[in-house]
Every structure is written in structure tokens, then in C-alpha cells.
């Protein structure tokens, strides 16, 4: 029973990872790619860790798995935020179908007065 539950959790995680990587390939510009892939892969890897730790089942493994999940959630979102900001500042163009660019408006508003 434990084995089945762990396998289901790992399967959910792998599905999230594959969909995130498909988003990384298919989306049209760098901001969409960051948005799709970072969130999907962080959550998918968290699911994989939960399922694998479930298979091991010792208290040390559970604690280390929790710390690992916290680090993945913190570091991947930090890296994605910094990278999107740097890409916008270095002038990577948005997709031609984008309809709003709030960060550009904020930069203009700061520069105006």
C-alpha cells in the first residue's frame, strides 16, 4: 500500500516535470518560458521528493526531504525572478502578441519626474 502511494506521488511529479519542460520548448518568448517551466518543475520535483522519502520512511530521510523541498521552492523562484528582471533590463524583446508590459510602465514612471 505504501509502495502504491509512493509510486502515485512520483508519477504526479514526473508528469509535472514533463509538462514544464514541454512548456520550456513550446512557449514563444523567454518570460513565458520562465513562467511555465520554473513553477511546474519546482512543484514536480517536490512531489518526487515526497514520494521517494515515503518509500524510505526513516525520520532522518523525512527531515532531509523537507529541507530539500524548502530549498528548491525558495531557490528556483528566486532565480526565476532575478533572471526575468535581468532579461527585461538587458532588452530581450517580448513576444509580438503580448498586450501589457507593467514593468516598462513602472520604469517610465520612475524616470519621468
Amino acid at each position, binding site marked *: 500500500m505504501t509502495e502504491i502511494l509512493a509510486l502515485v506521488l512520483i508519477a504526479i511529479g514526473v508528469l509535472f516535470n514533463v509538462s*514544464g519542460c*514541454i512548456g520550456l*520548448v513550446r512557449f514563444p518568448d523567454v518570460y513565458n518560458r520562465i513562467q511555465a517551466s520554473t513553477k511546474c518543475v519546482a512543484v514536480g*520535483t517536490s512531489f518526487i521528493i515526497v514520494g521517494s522519502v515515503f518509500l524510505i520512511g526513516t525520520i532522518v530521510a523525512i527531515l532531509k526531504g523537507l529541507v530539500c523541498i524548502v530549498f528548491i521552492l525558495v*531557490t528556483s523562484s528566486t532565480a526565476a525572478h532575478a533572471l526575468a528582471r535581468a532579461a527585461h533590463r538587458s532588452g*530581450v524583446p517580448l513576444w509580438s502578441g503580448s498586450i501589457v508590459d507593467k514593468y516598462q510602465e513602472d520604469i517610465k514612471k520612475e524616470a519621468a519626474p
Partner: protein
Amino acid sequence: MTFFETAIIVFFVGLLICCALCLHRIARGPSAPDRMVAIDILGTVAVGFIVILMAVTGKAYLLDVALVWAMISFIGTLALAKHLSGKNLND
């Protein structure tokens, strides 16, 4: 082959497909942030790989490897982000 082994092989194939898609983006990506986000995703997928390997083989030290990888794999991304936004690495 038992059901468990078949499922684990299917999971490894899924993660290998993830790695192949990331490598495709690293090769094709038109700008530097595209390549860097793909490298970041590749690091996170590698953490998943190591953790599944830990669960299959039962060697608990692999969880430490995954922990350290999750801690330090984003430093390169932050360094490139700082370089792209026009600052030096020491300020």
C-alpha cells in the same frame, strides 16, 4: 519484471525526456536568458533523478547529494542575472 521496476523505468524515461527537451532549448535558445533558464531547470530535474535513485537503491547518502545540489545550483543563474542587468559581480 515486477510492477515496481517497470514503474521506476517509466519514471526514469520521463525524466530523460525532460533532460532532452532542456538540452534542445539550450542548443536553440535565441538569447542568453533562454539558455540559462534551461540550465536551471536541468539542475532541478537532476535533483529529482538523484532522489528517485536514492529511493530505488536505498542508499541514504544520495539525499545529501540532492540537498546540496538544490542549494547551490541556482548560484550560476544569479551570477548571470547580475551580469545581464549591468552590474559587476562584486557590488
